[in-house]
């Protein structure tokens, strides 16, 4: 536990980066975690060519893991192309948390990834296989 709730995670939870709503936005999407009902939305602004992410924000309420994950993930997005986002491996999102995520909390950790992919693809995406692991 001391691992899971390291200061790194708790600081992102208490003072999340990129929290809020961009208005207007080029892309936006909202999704929820059925296990707990937590909802998260993401808004993105693109460059003139509509290829790269200029700015991003996430909003919603949730647990420390989902909030920290969204905070850390959104920090990485500026300057990335939409193709890079589409090709992103959910494992990268888990690795970026730098803490072991147990099976019961994988959906919390990957909600931000699911919302992001939904935003760039313009439709809800399935939970990545990683989120369905049970042991």
């Amino acid at each position, binding site marked *: *536990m001391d691992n*899971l*709730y390291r200061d790194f995670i*708790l600081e992102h939870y208490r003072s999340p980066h990129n929290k809020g709503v961009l208005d207007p936005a080029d892309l936006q999407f909202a999704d929820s975690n059925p296990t*707990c*009902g*937590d909802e998260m939305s993401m808004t993105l602004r693109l460059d003139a060519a509509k290829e790269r992410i200029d700015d991003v924000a996430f909003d919603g*309420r949730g*647990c420390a*893991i989902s909030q920290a994950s969204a905070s850390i993930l959104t920090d990485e997005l500026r300057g990335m192309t939409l193709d890079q986002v589409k090709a992103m491996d959910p494992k990268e999102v888990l690795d970026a948390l730098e803490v072991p995520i147990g099976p019961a909390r994988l959906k919390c950790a990957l909600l931000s990834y699911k919302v992001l992919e939904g935003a760039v693809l313009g439709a809800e995406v399935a939970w990545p296989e990683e989120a369905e692991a049970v042991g």
Partner: protein
Amino acid sequence: MAVQPLQERSTAIPGAFSGTALRADFPAFETPTRSGKRLVFLDAAASAPKPRSVIDAMADAYAHHYANVHRGIYELSEDATNRFEGARRKVAAFIGAPSEREIVFVRNATEAINLVRYSWGRANIGEGDRVITTQLEHHSNIVPWQQLCAEAGATLEYVGITDDGRLEMDDLRIKLQPSAGRKPRLLAVALVSNALGTINPIAEIARLAHEAGALLLVDAAQAAPHMPVDVAQLDCDFLAISGHKMLGPSGIGALWARRELLEAMPPFLTGGSMIIRVTLEGAEWNEVPHKFEAGTPAIVEAIGMGAAIDYLNALGMDRVREHERFLFERAWDALSEIPGVRLLGPADPEIHAGVISMLLEGVHPHDVATIFDHEGVAVRAGHHCAQPVMLRYDIPATTRASFYVYNDLDDVQALTDAVRSVQQVFGV
């Protein structure tokens, strides 16, 4: 704030059984948790651990008394049938049913309610009819009625709940009055709320429902494991229970209904066992309760549920209720003293079962449960299949601790210690 350890504030548990001693009956407590600590199990409201007597009864039934029931003209089948039907008698006696023929074995309380929805509901609920349930219910006592009403063109109405988690009785009285010339046909309500622990005044609710001309379905899944339940005293018309919440196996539960209702209701599932005669033109139904038990039933699970009832009866349901009430009061008082803890549901232990739903300021219930887990304390975090309750209080989820016979004051202490650990980790 320095809080005195619980053990110093209270003497031994009144009544004659000790949760500490009973833990020896449950193999689940033999294995330490990942963190190396003993398991403090506070999630009976989701599903209860099994005593060895239940596990042994099921192993013995499979090993030495197993054959299909109601069919074989041989000793082993007669033996299995006697044990299976014996379990039905135990269930009937456990809930005060006048006859075991009023007990229909189903998979769980959800299936019991769905049986009423499909069988009684389709035969009795039509266009413009009214069905009433409450905002306090488990989804299993809401979604079947939503589906029935949508299918029939009927209206579903919800009785509201108070800030402290009780049913709005004035609202219930209003909802029970005729509306547009229509009397309500059915009121479906839980005896105990699984999300908040509220004990509803069913006897009074039954009187009001019957005066209004409605039948009363009681979801007793969260009540029957924890307190005496008697269908005659409750004066209900249908009652649903689950075996797995009352120390029995999963995959078995029961519907009780008044004999005349069961006689008049059409079958739910059809096939083998539930018929007397089948021709190419049609079939005649078997007598109740077999009319509702199509196919080979969960024979060994029923026997296991019977063994669980034996275990509970040996303790005495009055004493089970007393035991949990004692733990509830101590836990409620101790948690109330911790700043930042918000407790949901009624404070009065008379109307609150051994379920405590709480919120910790600044910490999401999932994070609470994860940190509890590392302390060896198993609780449930989420909406408890009662999202309308969460909507009522505008919260996404709660952390829920629920007590049973094997819990003791050490567990209450572990619960309050775990709350402090969470607050320490999160610095709140």
